[in-house]
């Protein structure tokens, strides 16, 4: 830092800044010139992200070959340029490239590319087609900038941009009241967390005197900051992560966000919005590591979220909401993993989940596309007969998420459970329950929607166009094979030797745990078969016996109602009081008062310019004399 360019050698990795820039440019191009372009400029966004994906490989290659210093055991390249310096305040724009950033770049660019291609088919005929792709590009660009940011200030700026874009996309069909409401809910709920994030950033700035991440982390690990402050900062940062990553009690916005177009959901759940929170905790892990109390909170919140999400996913009948609650549950697992020092496991699970969840959402979108936007799973059934490819890919995604062996989700979930076993073993039982529930609701969705008897009214349903199926196929392949990076990608070993915190570790397989989780997952599918397919087990008596519990879960634990009540009664009452105060005291007296006097003085002062020359000359003469006298007085008095 300082003095411009910090360039150890000419690295291809530095070109990473191009990846978000391309999509930023695409946004402006589409907004400004989209209406003159064929297809309202959608191809610009796709070209930009495709180029970004290609650039990702260049950056990956560059990074592997680069010679950068280690930070927390990992090779970490930073490139920054001074933005401006004024006095002691140095602001710089820069990027950080370490394994975490690299894998995030890969995930985001790939999923975004798939989703955008898919959207060509899904959004076909939409009147604001161009706007959709423009915001999409901006969304992706902000997210990419977020994972590249090397200082908290830039991170915060793009963090907010991500929030704005999610608002725009969730409320894409803003003519629908529910969509507008959902967009507002998402924005406001996450904003509450953002306040925490901002406070956390400012607290760190106050302690360290810089927004730069590397410097901050170095100061943290050198023990320059008191543990109390550090815990506070970590918790404040986590508050921001909780909002974005839909952790209890901020998770309420995510299911409502289903009001947006389905590809947007895929993007939000797999590659952008909710990912940001997990990324933030991982990025700021040096701070969390130094504040074990904060990590316990992270783990606890993660566990609560995981269980809550999983139970709700089991009772809702809306296909997209099942997936949404499933995301909440899995985000909870990732946080739990981070809380249990499972840095690698969390990110690994995050990647595996990202591919699988994007795939599932695209599959759900494919179903909706063919069924007039129907999302009630009870009206579906037996769709495998009419939508074979969608069924195949969805099945892959579901098996992966459920943790069935060889699929990606199996490996990553296993790593998460292992981390919990190692560091927070008293939580293992709950984690296993969450894993079981996860398999259970996936089995339910899969059986009810795609297997069984095809309903007569669904005979007309047909497979989606290839432009939608191709991205699903790509993601499906990934959902199958991605897990093997756990074992080995290079001769050095699995993902644990590439992406780690402080200590690399090879592939570990705890046989007991592995077998146990396989039994749970397979068991869930078998149980699901008996319940939903063979109907050997009737849920009737259970529903009666646990009526109260089911009602609580079905009503989302009454959290939404609680919030609504709080907003209606408490917040609105307070707002009315503030509004009154604002109108009477602040506006009439404090703002309009000085404002009016400023305006008056302006109106009166203007008469000193009379248009008469001799007045002007007189003014100058008087001014000259005044200055001379003043000068003389000042110099003789000292």
């Amino acid at each position, binding site marked *: 830092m300082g003095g411009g360019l910090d360039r150890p050698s000419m690295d291809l990795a530095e070109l990473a800044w191009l990846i978000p820039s391309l999509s930023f440019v695409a946004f402006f191009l589409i907004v400004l010139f989209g209406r003159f372009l064929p297809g309202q400029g959608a191809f610009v966004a796709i070209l930009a992200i495709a180029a970004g994906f290609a650039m990702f490989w260049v950056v990956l290659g560059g990074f592997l070959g680069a010679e950068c210093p280690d930070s927390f055991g990992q090779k970490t390249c930073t490139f920054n340029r001074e933005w401006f310096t004024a006095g002691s305040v140095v602001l710089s724009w820069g990027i950080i490239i370490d394994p975490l950033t690299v894998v995030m770049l890969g995930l985001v660019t790939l999923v975004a590319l798939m989703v955008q291609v898919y959207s060509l088919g899904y959004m076909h005929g939409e009147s604001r087609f161009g706007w959709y792709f423009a915001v999409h590009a901006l969304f992706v660009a902000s997210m990419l900038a977020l994972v590249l940011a090397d200082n908290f200030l830039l991170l915060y700026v793009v963090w907010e941009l991500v929030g704005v874009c999610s608002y725009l996309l969730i409320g894409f069909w803003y003519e629908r009241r529910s969509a507008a409401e959902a967009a507002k809910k998402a924005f406001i709920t996450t904003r509450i967390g953002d306040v925490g994030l901002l406070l956390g950033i400012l607290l760190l700035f106050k302690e360290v005197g810089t927004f730069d991440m590397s410097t901050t982390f170095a100061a943290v690990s050198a023990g320059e900051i008191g543990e109390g402050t550090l815990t506070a900062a970590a918790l404040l940062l986590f508050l921001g992560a909780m909002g974005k990553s839909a952790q209890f009690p901020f998770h309420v916005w995510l299911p409502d966000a289903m009001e947006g177009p389905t590809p947007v959901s895929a993007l939000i759940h797999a590659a952008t919005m909710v990912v940001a929170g997990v990324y933030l905790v991982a990025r700021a892990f040096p701070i969390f590591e130094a504040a074990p109390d904060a990590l316990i909170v992270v783990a606890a919140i993660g566990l609560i979220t995981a269980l809550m999400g999983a139970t709700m996913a089991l009772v809702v009948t809306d296909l997209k909401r099942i997936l949404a609650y499933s995301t909440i549950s899995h985000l909870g697992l990732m946080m739990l993993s981070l809380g249990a020092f499972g840095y690698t496991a969390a990110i690994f699970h995050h990647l595996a989940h990202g591919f699988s969840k994007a795939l599932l959402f695209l599959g759900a979108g494919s179903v909706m596309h063919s069924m007039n936007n129907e999302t009630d799973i009870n009206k579906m059934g037996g769709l495998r007969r009419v939508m074979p490819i969608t069924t195949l890919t969805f099945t892959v995604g579901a098996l992966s998420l459920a943790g069935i062996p060889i699929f990606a989700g199996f490996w990553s979930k296993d790593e998460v459970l292992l981390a919990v076993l190692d560091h927070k073993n008293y939580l293992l039982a709950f984690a296993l329950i969450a894993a079981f529930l996860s398999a259970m609701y996936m089995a339910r969705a899969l059986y009810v929607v795609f297997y069984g008897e095809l309903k007569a009214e669904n005979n007309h349903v047909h497979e989606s166009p290839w432009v939608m199926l191709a991205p699903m196929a790509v993601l499906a392949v990934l959902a199958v094979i991605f897990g093997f990076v756990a074992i080995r990608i290079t001769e050095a070993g699995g993902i644990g030797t590439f992406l780690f915190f402080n200590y690399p570790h090879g592939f570990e397989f705890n046989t007991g745990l592995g077998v146990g989780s396989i039994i749970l997952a397979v068991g869930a599918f078998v149980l699901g078969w008996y319940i939903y397919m063979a109907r050997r087990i009737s849920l009737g008596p259970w529903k009666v016996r646990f009526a109260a519990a089911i009602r609580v879960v079905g009503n989302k634990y009454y959290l939404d109602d609680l919030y609504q009540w709080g907003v209606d009664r408490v917040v609105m009452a307070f707002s009315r009081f503030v509004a009154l105060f604002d109108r009477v005291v602040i506006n009439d007296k404090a703002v309009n008062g000085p404002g009016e006097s400023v*305006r008056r003085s302006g109106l009166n002062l203007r008469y000193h*310019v009379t248009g008469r020359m001799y007045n002007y*000359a007189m*003014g100058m003469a008087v001014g000259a004399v005044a200055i*001379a006298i003043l000068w003389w007085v000042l110099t003789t008095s000292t």
Partner: protein
Amino acid sequence: MPETNLTSNLHLLLPEFLLATLAFAVFAIDLLLPANRKKLLAWVSVAGLIGLLALALALLWGENEEMYGGLIKVDSYALFFKSFFILLGIFIILSSVDYVGKHLSHPGEYYGLILFSVLAMNVMAASREILTAYVALELMSFSFYIMVSYARYNPRSNEAGIKYVLIGAFSSAILLFGISMLYSTIGVTHFADISATLANAGDASPALWVGLALILVGLGFKVAAVPFHMWAPDVYQGAPLPVTAYLAVGSKAAAFALMLRLFAEAFMPSIDDWQIIVAIIAAITMTVGNLVAIAQHNIKRLLAYSSIGQVGFLLVGIAALSETSPLASNGVMLHIVGYSFTNLAVFVGIIAFFNMTGKEEIADFSGLADRHPFLAAAMAIGMFSLAGLPFFAGFTTKFYLFTAAANEGLLWLAGLAIVNSLISLYYYQVEIRHMYIQPAPDMEGKLEPASAHNPHPPPVGGGAEDASRHSPTPLIIGVLILMVLGTFFVGVYPFPIVEALDAATSAILPGAGS
């Protein structure tokens, strides 16, 4: 300095010689061209200036030599301003082309005068001797006196010219008087000598301080600092629009280029004596400028007062000059650059609007955003930048200036400057509100039938130019885009410019290297 050196490095003045040649060439070509080909003059001037810019950069990069026994110095400071003024000349000429074709006669002399004024500005930034600086200043002023009254048949333009000449003569007299008092007391006129004398002039006669005060007054007139500003609104309003733009940007930048070098190289040792005076003038200037701007109805008068306010901000930088920190000097120059882009964005927008409608009252801009969204957007961007909102040039440059003031202990001045920025936001927003929120005054319905039997047709403009009355020409749009990009560039990524500024500052304040 040995006598033999006087002419040994004359080649370093090649850009100036060629610039004068170019100006005369434009005068000459003007005589040969038929009346309908006069636009060629503009292209010749622009092409010449571009060539000169390339030449200057190639020839003078890294030079640091005195000429004529120290009257003029060719250093990175002079080169920075030389490039800046040449670029400014190019932009002014480009934005004048349509206007001159429609509203002015004798384009040859017009472009020639612009070239002469650029020449004068270059010398102003390079002079290290007070009389040389004065002569250059006068050459620039004379060019402006003529250009201000260039619309010969417009009484306002004539009035403006007369006022400018008379008050200008008055101020020149004061300036010269100040210079002679300075010379009479300390007997030197070179900046370096003045500095050396002031450094041990603790008990100098009051005449010296009177002399310095009078010099300050003379320069205060040139930059329109309060209370020497009263000519500005009248002259700005009366002058042809591109000249107003040039006056607001060019003459001010040049006067500050001179002032910055003078204060940094000559007056620095006695900063404790004049800092508070300049600070007071800065405070009064920005406050009066911004307050009175609120009450204006004419866009040119509004910008006159707004530019007075900006002068106040620049004076903050002069008051905050320091021998050890480049911040204030960088701030002044960066503000000049950012302010030029910004102000030109606004002015070029107004020129385009005036070319189409012939109007210049603030209320006439109502509904502009609907009819010409780009024009309105460019002007709005310029005004947001003038008000100092982030991401625009105005924010970054003011940040430098105010930080410099705060670092030098002038916290009250920095605070007042921030309050003033706030006030300025009000009147810029009034204009923006007109463009974006107020409905258009029924342009389509009125203009068309009226022009058929209009008793007072717009000044010139024949059938061929009718098209340009309804939409801005590509040339104007092109200049506008450049200015908007410049505004963002300075606002978002000023680093490359600041690097050049560091070099310039180290030329005039050797101790302030960053």
